[in-house]
């Protein structure tokens, strides 16, 4: 029930029942209420739960965490390459 999905704001509209947006989720567009994220603007990614945006995704924060994780992933691949003689992904490894 606490499922929430990030989507991108395509357009914003002021309605009698508050500020709403057309939000795109990988090709599907839905109407979403923006009352809880008044700072959100077109192009922002928002996290949507039962038709309401509950946060504006922090792209910088995501980028920073992700870089950290990516480095870790690369380090691991290198470590495997050094120690293992596994026949994994042969097309990537010029023998």
């Amino acid at each position, binding site marked *: 029930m606490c499922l*929430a999905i990030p989507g991108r704001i395509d357009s914003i509209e002021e309605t009698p029942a508050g500020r709403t947006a057309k939000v795109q989720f990988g090709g599907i567009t839905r109407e979403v209420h923006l009352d809880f994220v008044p700072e959100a603007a077109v192009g922002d990614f928002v996290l949507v739960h039962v*038709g*309401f945006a509950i946060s504006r995704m922090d792209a910088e924060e995501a980028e920073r965490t992700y870089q950290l994780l990516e480095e870790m992933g690369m380090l691991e691949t290198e470590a495997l390459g050094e120690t293992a003689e596994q026949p994994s992904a042969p097309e990537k490894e010029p023998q």
Partner: protein
Amino acid sequence: MKFVDEYRKPEIARALAAEISRRVTRPWVLMEICGGQTHTLMRYGIPDLLPREIDLVHGPGCPVCVAPVEIIDKALAIAARPDVVFVSYGDMLRVPGSREDLFTVKARGGDVRVVYSPMDALRIARAERSKRVVFFAIGFETTAPANAWAVWQARREGLDNFAMLVSQVLVPPAIRLLLESPRNRVQGFIAPGHVCTVMGYRQYEMLSRDFRVPIVVGGFEPIDLLEAIHMLVVQLEEGRAETENQYARSVAREGNLPAQRLMEKVFEVCDRKWRGVGEIPQSGLRLREEYTAHDAERIFELEELSVEEPAECISAEVLQGLKKPPDCPAFGTRCTPEMPLGAPMVSAEGACAAYYQYRRVPVANAGD
């Protein structure tokens, strides 16, 4: 999809799992609170990536699972009335009350409709003014602002035919109860990222301090959960007990303030009974006095009955992390998602449903 796909990369998952194995020196019991996280863990086979020392137990974070039989019985009584359109999330329809479920009421001719958002319930109320439209407002803090908005908007529009049957529960009092129990085995918690998106995590900092327990606010993708587990293991191995935030792309320490303000306007904190657990003080929300006209429990004359749980169902122990679904003799035989004995087998977030869907056959430990 941005903010999703990059958190599902297998090479990063393997690197994190290797890092967890490197850091761990002794057994630790960790609990994820939220049922959505339970499903991610099972779906991606994360327990099999982890070293033997890490025991993941599953918490009570499934609002459908912890809704007490009494409130389901009230829903059934309201839904059966000829003047009512009963509106609910789909998950609730198969949850057994003491005698039947909402599907049975619908099959007998009750007007029971499934929606995706409380806004849909408002739309029905606007279109069908001669009917009383009752929305089953169930959920944790994540869902509370949307439900608060629906009642607040109904009052603003003068939609006096719109009412809500409220079964809102709060996460921190449940964690406190688990930690106070002499049977508690949990040494570190993954706090629910979407609940904390709304509420922030100051209350979790208090729990970390009061019980010397590490808590990491975690997201819902496999990489999020592995990183949260890694952060917990590092804290435990270093002897620290703090609340940290893994899900910083969505969660701020103080949470979503406009959402909290609306919740505060519409709801007040109350004691609530949790299915399988019992009454937890100050663990729920109910409508404030000003919203009595929209409160289904006050509009309809409903019997207050106390109902026994089916004796064979061990959901109480599952919801408290004391047992796992396959420990139940009825699991997958007398209890299945089609014919459930208890709510954790029904809900898309229930631990029993997660095991049934992804781990019905035990997997040989491929790790270490």
